[in-house]
């Protein structure tokens, strides 16, 4: 397998993300790949199927800027604050364009990523019991255990075209270290055809212990060093989650014009990797 290319974020996105791709940007509250998402917006990618367990503000921004045709998710809010107003505007009023949704539970998506990483066609788990989600999502089905007869939920394995994640460190050979809340990032990268990893820094020695969560260089397509690349989310050991930004986002995102003006000055007019601070 070829090793990861260490390159610029601009090149990494240009090389690996195409219009119409299914794109998984993971990071469970922690290590959300904001800088990479902003670069995808700046490069004007369209018709994407955006996949994230918790869409968070980054998907609010990508949806509001017209990147997405479809959203696959399991919890779409601004954590502890309220709604994602751009996501709601797209679902409720088709702005800036209609947004198809495929909705799951966290348990289901976590299982589907794991099945994707494991090379299985589907995930089997005990879930979706007695609720209405299977009525609105025909990819939620069931199988019978051949040994016990128990009815279990099944959904297709997650196999995105591209996985995009942020991590603390890469070494010069392109091996990547993740620490803290590790979410589903390892599974997302292993399940995807291509992957982009942004990191806080590139170092000589990762310094992880023998059980550290490491993605080997040959599982990754491209790596770019982007300090603060997860802001306003956080990078354990580098900077905290900016909870005040999450609160400040609410009034910005409520109004279409305010949102577009904010995106123009904080994302579109900025250089790659410059961040929104």
């Amino acid at each position, binding site marked *: 397998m070829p090793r990861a290319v260490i390159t610029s974020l601009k090149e990494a996105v240009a090389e690996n993300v195409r219009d119409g791709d299914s794109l998984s940007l993971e990071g469970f509250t922690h290590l959300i790949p904001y800088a990479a998402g902003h670069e995808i917006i700046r490069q004007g990618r369209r018709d994407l199927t955006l996949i994230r367990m918790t869409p968070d503000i980054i998907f609010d921004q990508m949806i509001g800027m017209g990147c997405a045709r479809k959203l696959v998710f399991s919890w779409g809010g601004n954590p502890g604050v309220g*709604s994602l107003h751009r996501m709601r505007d797209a679902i*409720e009023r088709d702005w800036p364009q209609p947004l198809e949704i495929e909705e799951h539970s966290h348990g289901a998506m976590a299982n589907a990523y794991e099945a994707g990483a494991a090379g299985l066609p589907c995930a089997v788990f005990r879930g979706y019991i007695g609720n209405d989600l299977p009525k609105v999502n025909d990819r939620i089905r069931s199988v019978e255990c051949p040994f016990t007869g128990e009815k279990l939920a099944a959904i297709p394995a997650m196999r995105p075209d591209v996985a995009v994640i942020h991590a603390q460190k890469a070494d010069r050979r392109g091996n990547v270290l993740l620490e803290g809340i590790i979410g589903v990032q390892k599974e997302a990268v292993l399940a995807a055809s291509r992957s982009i990893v942004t990191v806080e820094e590139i170092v000589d020695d990762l310094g992880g212990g023998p059980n550290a969560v490491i993605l080997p260089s040959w599982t990754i397509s491209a790596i770019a060093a982007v300090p603060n690349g997860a802001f306003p989310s956080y990078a354990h050991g580098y900077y905290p989650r900016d909870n005040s930004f999450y609160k400040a986002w609410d009034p910005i995102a409520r109004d279409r014009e305010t949102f577009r003006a904010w995106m123009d000055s904080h994302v579109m007019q900025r250089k790659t990797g410059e961040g929104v601070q």
Partner: protein
Amino acid sequence: MSDRTYTADEMMTVAASRALRNGQVCFVGIGQPSAAANLARQTHAPDVVLIYESGTLETRPDVLPLSIGDGELAETALTNVSVPEMFRYWLQGGRIDVGFLGAAQVDRYGNINTTVIGGTYLKPKTRLPGAGGAPEIATSARETFILLRQSPRAFVEKLDFITSLGHGSGGNSRAEAGAKTLGPTRLISDLCQMAPHPETKELTVTTIHPGVTRDQIIAATGWAIRFADSVTETPVPELSELAVLREIHARTARAHAGQA
């Protein structure tokens, strides 16, 4: 000693915290459940084990997290596991005693809606955040507690969408749907506490918070609420409980304001 100057929210949080027993393993939802679970840990239940779906196992935060995966949770946890491991081994594997859930809407059988209100599923009047971990918490945790402020908009006759199973349509319907766990055993609101009737499984008022009337509860409920044969008054919050809760909130406010 007690203090009559507490708020309705404080009464709700204190009552909810008392429902957790020392040593239980609790899967904690964000918001009010998180405040109640951490109050329990810092008062009568120092060995309660708190688990958040972000993978933080046995976490002991000083400050309440705004999100389910704040750094505070990871830093104070015994260990942090991946999200697939959290849902497969720890929740589905049967390691959780109590699932502590909030909701947007609840019905008389403790079914929960956090998906859509009004309109249709594809074009709802109000799009809510969705399921998160709740559907599997509701069926894999040994029992669940629901924590929710009471109003006719939240306590409804019929849910527009069932996101997480409670007692289904009552009676044995939960077990018939395939759930092997107890489901909601308690609902704590800012007015009262409810428990499912042993046979019908309809949520019934069991204790009323001090100063609250039956008429207030009836007016705040979208179905014809029933009261248990013997309804008692919820014990008032102790001064010590209020002091700890207020200190938790003050520390949290300082911590969140300190980030620019």
